[in-house]
């Protein structure tokens, strides 16, 4: 009885401690503009932890995990198989919720600072970038297709997981710089910051990041979508003018 009491007291104390630690987060930029000369960018995530009371003695050390994520999108994954001596696309699967971008930054190795189940619950870690859906279990092969999405995107720099790049000062101030690759696709991104203690998430905050094409990039993209025929004819005109221009230029040079 006494044991149960002390246990629930400890739980209560933990909950109170969690509530008294408030997370304040900001970004170096809430808006990433993709211009014609865009070649990757960097987002600086920083913040502080507000406390009403000083921490009791013997509290486990604080850890921080940051997840920057692009919009969830469906992806068609195809697998090659050898048929009649040649390699062809055989099976294909629709992976419904895969983020276009996924970067995890932490204060230390993920498995040491956070339990496996917590990693899964909060989708922290590249193994949880691609969301598992309930009906996925209908297909026994699904796991290998999900893993393929992660593997291919890690190789192309879209998914990443980096230990120790979040710097924490006096358990109060933290900062991390997240690299955005050159092959970024526009959309509504988010930066989630998790406070971790005793391998459990005790607090989290989400900040939105808008990634948008601007200027010429925006204009051309909209034209291609909304005025497709005009855009196509314009492309042809540019091609003919360039062809004629080069021909005339070389005729002049030859004289």
């Amino acid at each position, binding site marked *: 009885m006494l044991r149960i009491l002390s246990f629930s007291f400890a739980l209560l104390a933990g909950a109170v401690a969690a509530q008294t630690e408030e997370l304040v987060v900001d970004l170096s930029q809430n808006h990433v503009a993709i211009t014609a000369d865009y070649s990757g960018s960097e987002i600086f995530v920083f913040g502080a932890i507000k406390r009403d009371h000083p921490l009791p003695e013997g509290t486990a050390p604080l850890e921080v995990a940051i997840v920057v994520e692009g919009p969830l999108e469906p*992806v068609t994954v195809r697998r090659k198989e050898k048929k009649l001596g040649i*390699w062809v696309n055989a099976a294909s699967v629709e992976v419904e919720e895969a983020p276009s971008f996924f970067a995890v930054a932490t204060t230390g190795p993920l498995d040491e600072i956070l339990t496996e189940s917590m990693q899964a619950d909060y989708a922290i870690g590249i193994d949880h970038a691609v969301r598992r859906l309930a009906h996925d279990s209908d297909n026994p092969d699904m796991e290998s297709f999900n893993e*393929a999405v992660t593997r291919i995107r890690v190789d192309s720099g879209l998914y990443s997981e980096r230990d120790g790049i979040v710097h924490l000062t006096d358990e109060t101030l933290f900062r991390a710089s997240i690299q955005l690759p*050159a*092959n970024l696709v526009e959309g509504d991104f988010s930066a989630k910051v998790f406070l971790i203690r005793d391998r459990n998430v005790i607090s989290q905050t989400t900040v939105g990041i808008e990634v948008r094409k601007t200027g010429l*990039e925006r204009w*051309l993209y909209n034209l291609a979508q909304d005025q497709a025929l005009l855009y196509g004819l314009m*492309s042809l005109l540019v091609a003919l003018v360039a062809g004629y221009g080069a021909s005339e230029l070389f005729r002049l040079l030859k004289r």
Partner: protein
Amino acid sequence: MQIYLPIAEVSVSIFLLFGLGALVGILSGMFGVGGGFLMTPMLFMIGIPPAVAVATEANQIVASSFSGVLAHLRRKTVDLKMGMVLLVGGLVGAAIGVQVFKYLKSIGQVELLVTLTYVIFLGLVGGMMFIESLNAIRKSKKTGVVGKKKRHNWIHGLPFKMRFRVSNLYISVIPPFLVGALVGILAAIMGVGGGFIMVPAMIYLLGMPTKVVVGTSLFQIIFVTAFTTLMHATQNHTVDAVLAVVLLLGGVIGAQIGTRIGVKLKAEQLRILLAIMVLAMCAKLAYGLLFEPSELYSLGAGGH
């Protein structure tokens, strides 16, 4: 210097793109091929999504072919009459090809069939050209004169004869029409201009002089690729204007240089070079089909 492509949604080096455009442009001017069968795989390799690569490269070929044709027109090495016959056949063929493509898509094996068609046609055409031009070079070395091609075969027995003055031919319109139609079908299925099939067909099947073949092939390619560009732009929205401009700036300059190189080289040398290139591309595609790829999985845009 990096440039972000608005439709492809990737950032690539502008110099790399310009260089690729120039390289393919030189080949285009030299051989009268659109260069699509070389450009498409190269664009895949630098990370351009396949759908965007195919559509944009069609647009680029319009520019380099137009530039090449103007140079050939000045030299009077375009058989416009023959070009028109081929073009009529080409448009009929392209219309059929689009339907075939749709059907293959519905049964779900379009990629395999495209690759297989490439391997078979590149292998056949490349092999034939290589052997023939090797024989021609041997012959010219022995006798000192270029061996004259046979000018009379079964083709000359067909009806609806027409005189093609520039090509110095008096033949039936049926063979060029059929050649145009076949190339049109293949162009629609394979997503290229089809010059690498057209050029040997004109030389060996129709017996046209090599110098006229290049300009005439380019003339027909302009229209086929312009048609393809419009189809992709309106139906798939996959033509990337920024990518096209950089590629075509390189391409049109390359085509001018290529035309000048082509005029200086002997016909047999020109043909053997093209044959080697066609065979190399064939070997590369065959390798991909026959050997286990390092990554079995590939990603495509989702949504049904």
